[in-house]
Each structure stands twice: as structure tokens, then as C-alpha cells.
């Protein structure tokens, strides 16, 4: 997946000029935000908070024991009949997937929603080798037809209006004209049915890998994930190494907290546990399952001060809570992971220099931490990343010059006070509504307020005088 994270400001400008996107995203995120509150705190605020802390501890415990749990998981997965492979980066994961597809002479792959596969760009890879890849989640299918990217971790087409979805389905999949979401879904169901029955390769991610039992856990509402993991003879699950949980009991907590936090459901329609390939006496199921553990930068994060960001269970609630995501939508973030979690992990996975605007796409309001089901301190990480950027990256000369001038003048208080007075006097005399270029970035979007008659230092001196006198 191509990374355009450094174009955030330009992309956000485009999004801000798109009223359809604004309306669709705001509607979707607010709905998600409110449903999360109702579900997480269904049994009281105290219970909801305690659950959040329990989920947080489960993920921290898994991270603390990550190497051991990965070994334990591999041992139990193998015992259950999985084939386990390891990929250090996107290129290796794509090579492994291509090898499997070639070995089994795959022609049609069906895919269920997976962020890890977005990350490595598996569709492009397989299509280049002549394997047809069909996204089977309704939202992902529409994104694929429209040749776009998903804009939200959980609701991939939250940015699209009903009208634009209708247009895509009519133009790209020859849907008979209808503006009824039920009819559109029926059309997609029938279209996909044929693919489900023909496919010879299923590709999924996993929400959890349970080390203790050697199983993978998937959550889904549409049921496409059950088709993908049941009908084709071969199933590949691409899983980030941080998806490990230790025990079945820990999984039971997380697989319930995830939907409560993501969509406000008590459980997703299907809570799917896969324990390996079809057993000899069974009627259906994949005959071979390859589980690929994907690193792709995660072990680097593990070694850094940002290791805690690996606790994320991809519920998308920080996207729904974020006032920046709310107006820009997900595409502006330029890579796979949008919103606050994206602003933290994109610079970590793709390199600071390739995503240096993202940590600033944040008002530091702190809501993303409050809604996080595993309590990741995202605002703190965003601040730390800003610090890293200032310390390691070459800045913009104009900005650096301004900061140097500022730093020099504040070290000379008399001069500072004098300059302040002059500025207030001069600007007070001019009937300015905006500051002329090149200092106009702020006043492009705001009205210039009038300067106060007295400066803070003067007011402070008076205040101290009154207090003492």
C-alpha cells in the first residue's frame, strides 16, 4: 500500500471542501460514538471502566510475554493442523502468499476484511500473478469496485453517501438501478454467492490468536468471513504478531469488549473460532490453513517507547471520537490506519520522515485515550512523536527561522515587552481583518481578533500591585 501520509494537510483541505464526505463521516462517527457508550457502560460506569482496565491488562500481559506466547501459539497451532509461517516484512508475506497460491494453482481468491492484508497490499500482489481477488465484505467490495481504499478500520465506507454507493454498484457491477440499501445488499449477496462457491483460496486476517489452545478468533457481522474460511480448499490467515492472547478466558473478555467498543454490539453476529483444517470426519471446511505471522515493523515498535501501541485491538473507537477524523475522514491520513491510532502507528511503521504531519493532526483533547478499550495513551504518544520529529527531522526553514526569532526575543524581556506594545499599537491602528501573506495561514480560516488594550504583563503588575497595596 502506497504511503501518502505526508500529504495530510493537502488531503485534509480536499476533505474539508467535500460536504458529502463531511456529512457522511460525521453521521457515522457520532452513531458509533454513542453506541459505544451505551454498550460499554450498559451495566454502569464503574463496571464499564473495570472492563476496560481488564481488557487493557490482558493485552499488556500478552505483550509482556510476547516471544513466549508466540512460541506456545505456534506449537499448539501446529498440533491442531495449521501450517505456521513467519514474515518479517510485507515483501516476504507477499512472497509466501504467492507461493501458496501457485502451489495450489489458485485462480479465484475471496477475502474477508483484514487490516494486515491492506498493509501488505496482497490484492495487487496476487492480481499481478493472475489470481482474481474479490473483497467479500460489502463495504470492502464497494471500495474495491470504486478503486478506492477503506477510510475506517471498522466501517470501510463511512465516507460514502448512499447515492455514491449506488453509482459505484450500477457503473462497476451493472446493478439494476435502485436507491434502496436492501436491494443493493441483495444484489451484492447474489453477486458474491457465485464467487463463494467458485473460490479456491480464502484469505482472512484474525482478531485474536489464542496461544493456549492454538486457535484463531474472528469477529464478523455479514458472515462473509465464515464463507471465506469454510468453502475454499485453502485458507490463508495473515496475522500481526501482536494479535496474541494467552488464554481462552482472556479471549472471552476481549471478543466481547471489541464489539461493544466498535459498534455497540454485545457480540458480533458471528464470533468464529477456527481450530485448524477440516477434520477427517467433517463435512466442510478448508483442507489446509496457513497462518502467517506478520512482523512488518511491529518488533521495532516493541523495542521502542511506543510498545504499548501494540495493544490496539482495532475497534475504531478512537476514530469515532476524534474531532480531526470527524472532519477529514480517513483517506487524509494517507495510509492504512487512520485516526489517532493511525497517527501513532503510521510514523512508527513507515518511518517518522514519511508521516511527519500525522502527529500534529490532533488537538490533544484526549478523548481517544478515554474511549480506548485497552487504554492506550494515544495523546501522550502523539506529543512524544512531535518531540521525536523536532529532534530528528530537518524542519521547514521558515518555521525554524520564526522559532529562532521567537526564542531570541523571549530571552530579552525588555525588548519583548517593547515589541509587543509596538505590535499592538500598529495593528490597532490598521483596520486589518487578516494578516497579509506569507503570515496568513491562520487568518485564512479565522477572523483576526483585536489586540487587548493592556498586555498580560501590565495586567499582572496591576494585579500584584492591588494585592500587595
Amino acid at each position, binding site marked *: 500500500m502506497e504511503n501518502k501520509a505526508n500529504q495530510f494537510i493537502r488531503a485534509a483541505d480536499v476533505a474539508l471542501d467535500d460536504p458529502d464526505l463531511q456529512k457522511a463521516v460525521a453521521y457515522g462517527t457520532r452513531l458509533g460514538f454513542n453506541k459505544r457508550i451505551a454498550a460499554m457502560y450498559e451495566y454502569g460506569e464503574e463496571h464499564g471502566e473495570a472492563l476496560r482496565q481488564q481488557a487493557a491488562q490482558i493485552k499488556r500481559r500478552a505483550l509482556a510475554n510476547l516471544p513466549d506466547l508466540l512460541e506456545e501459539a505456534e506449537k499448539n497451532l501446529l498440533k491442531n493442523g495449521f501450517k505456521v509461517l513467519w514474515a518479517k516484512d510485507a515483501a516476504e508475506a507477499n512472497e509466501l502468499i504467492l507461493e501458496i497460491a501457485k502451489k495450489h494453482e489458485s485462480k479465484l481468491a475471496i477475502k474477508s476484511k483484514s487490516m494486515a492484508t491492506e498493509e501488505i497490499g496482497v490484492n495487487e500482489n496476487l492480481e499481478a500473478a493472475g489470481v482474481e481477488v474479490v473483497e467479500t465484505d460489502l463495504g470492502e467490495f464497494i471500495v474495491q469496485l470504486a478503486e478506492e481504499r477503506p477510510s475506517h478500520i471498522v466501517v470501510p465506507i463511512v465516507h460514502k453517501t448512499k447515492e455514491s454507493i449506488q453509482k459505484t454498484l450500477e457503473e462497476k457491477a451493472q446493478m439494476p438501478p435502485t436507491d434502496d440499501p436492501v436491494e443493493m445488499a441483495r444484489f451484492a449477496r447474489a453477486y458474491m454467492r457465485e464467487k463463494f462457491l467458485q473460490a479456491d483460496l480464502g484469505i482472512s486476517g484474525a482478531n485474536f490468536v489464542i496461544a493456549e489452545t492454538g486457535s484463531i478468533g474472528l469477529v464478523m*457481522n455479514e458472515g462473509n468471513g465464515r464463507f471465506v474460511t469454510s468453502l475454499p480448499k485453502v485458507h490463508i490467515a495473515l496475522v500481526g504478531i501482536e494479535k496474541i492472547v494467552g488464554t481462552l478466558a482472556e479471549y472471552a473478555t476481549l471478543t466481547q469488549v471489541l464489539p461493544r467498543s466498535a459498534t455497540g454490539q454485545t457480540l458480533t453476529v458471528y464470533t468464529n473460532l477456527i481450530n485448524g483444517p477440516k477434520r477427517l470426519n467433517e463435512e466442510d471446511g478448508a483442507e489446509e490453513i496457513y497462518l502467517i505471522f506478520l512482523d512488518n515493523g511491529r518488533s521495532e515498535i516493541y523495542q521502542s517507547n511506543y510498545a504499548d501501541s501494540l495493544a490496539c485491538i482495532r475497534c475504531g473507537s478512537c476514530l469515532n471520537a476524534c474531532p480531526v477524523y470527524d472532519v477529514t475522514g480517513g483517506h487524509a491520513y494517507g495510509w492504512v490506519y487512520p485516526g489517532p491510532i493511525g497517527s501513532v502507528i503510521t510514523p512508527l511503521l513507515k518511518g517518522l520522515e514519511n508521516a511527519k504531519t500525522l502527529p500534529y493532526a490532533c488537538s490533544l483533547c484526549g478523548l481517544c485515550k478515554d474511549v480506548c478499550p485497552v487504554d492506550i495513551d494515544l495523546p501522550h504518544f502523539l506529543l512524544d512523536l512531535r518531540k521525536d520529529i523536532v529532534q530528528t527531522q530537518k524542519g521547514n526553514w521558515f518555521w525554524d527561522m520564526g522559532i529562532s526569532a521567537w526564542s531570541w526575543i523571549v530571552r530579552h524581556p525588555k525588548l519583548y515587552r517593547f515589541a509587543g506594545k509596538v505590535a499592538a499599537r500598529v495593528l490597532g491602528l490598521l483596520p486589518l481583518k487578516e494578516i497579509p501573506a506569507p503570515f496568513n495561514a491562520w487568518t485564512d480560516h479565522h477572523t483576526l481578533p483585536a489586540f487587548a488594550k493592556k498586555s498580560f504583563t501590565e495586567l499582572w503588575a496591576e494585579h500584584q500591585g492591588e494585592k500587595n497595596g
Partner: protein
Amino acid sequence: MDSKRAILDKLSSTPSLVLDSPESDFLHVVPNVSNNPEEMLTRFITEAEKLICKIHQVTDEEEAIEEILTLVEGEEKILGWSLDEIGLPSLEPALNAKNIHVDTSPNPEARYGVTGVDAALAATGSIILSSGAGKPRVASLLPLVHIAVLRSEKIIQDLESWVAHQENLTEPSNIFVISGPSKTADIAMELVMGMHGPQEIHIILIET
């Protein structure tokens, strides 16, 4: 193998920078679900109806078969678990008498699927099914209508109590908790039932 070692070595070389919190007793996500059979039955029905499942309460096998026959009236082929696995021995002659054939292979024409249920959760109104001999996964997935035969003694408190009693969890290749019919809200957040899986779930609840 090289990549595995490289990844694990990197992870292991990291000083334990993440806190290792003590294991504590887990809170249940849905707290205080009674384990009284009658209360669990009532709770299950309430929660399953919230999920838009249709509950058919019956008192014996005969009534259960009648309910199923009313639903599948007029069909020639339905999907299903083998009749032994559903646990209604006289369902087979009853279906035969109506010339309804039960298929265990993925017949795309079938509109109904009849299955048994391994366990059900009072807290969330969910039913749990697994794969196995005579228990095709497709029976609860392909058809537009899923008919699930549940005996009330299989209702337990919640997911936590279910996992606590799993001794041979990995014997079946697939276990799935079903909480209502397949659905999507991908188009402008409007709810549509029956996206890829069944649009309706009928639970034939035999109270024993």
C-alpha cells in the same frame, strides 16, 4: 525459519519494558447472570428476540417437528445437519412423508437450513454451533432461513461460563457463536438483515 528466529530474537532482546500485571479474577462482561434454569430461559428469550431471532417455544419433540414442518412446507430440498445430530429422531419420517430431502452438501438452491445447537448463552441470546461429523457448517450459513433446534437444558449463563467448560475445544475445526441473523450497516449506516448468511433465524426451543 530464519524470519521466525529473527523476529523472536528481536522481541526477546527487548528488556521487559511492558508491565506484567498480576492475573486477577476476571469480571464477566455481562455481570450477575443468574444460573437458575428458569431465569436463564427467560433471559435467553429476551436477549435472542432483541437480536431479531424468532423463538418458537414448544414442550415436546412432536410440537417441535410440527413447527419445523410449517416453516419448510413446500420445499423439496433443505440443508441440514444429519438428523441424528439434530436430536429429533422422528423428524426424518416426517420430512420424508412430505417429500422433503435434507442435503448436507452446499446446495446453493436450498432456502432453509435445519441444525441442532451445542449450547446457548442467556446473557446475550446467542447460540453456539460447531463443525463435526453430520454437522456441515454451510447448513447455518448458506440458506436464507436458519432453523435451530435448541433444548432448554443447553442454555448456560454467558460466554465466560462456556469457555470455562471447554475440555476438547479444538476437537471440531470450527466453533461459532451466532448472535442473530447476518447483517450489515455498510450503506449509509442503514441496517440490512441477511447480508451473506441467513436473513432469519428461527429457534425451536424445546422446554424440558
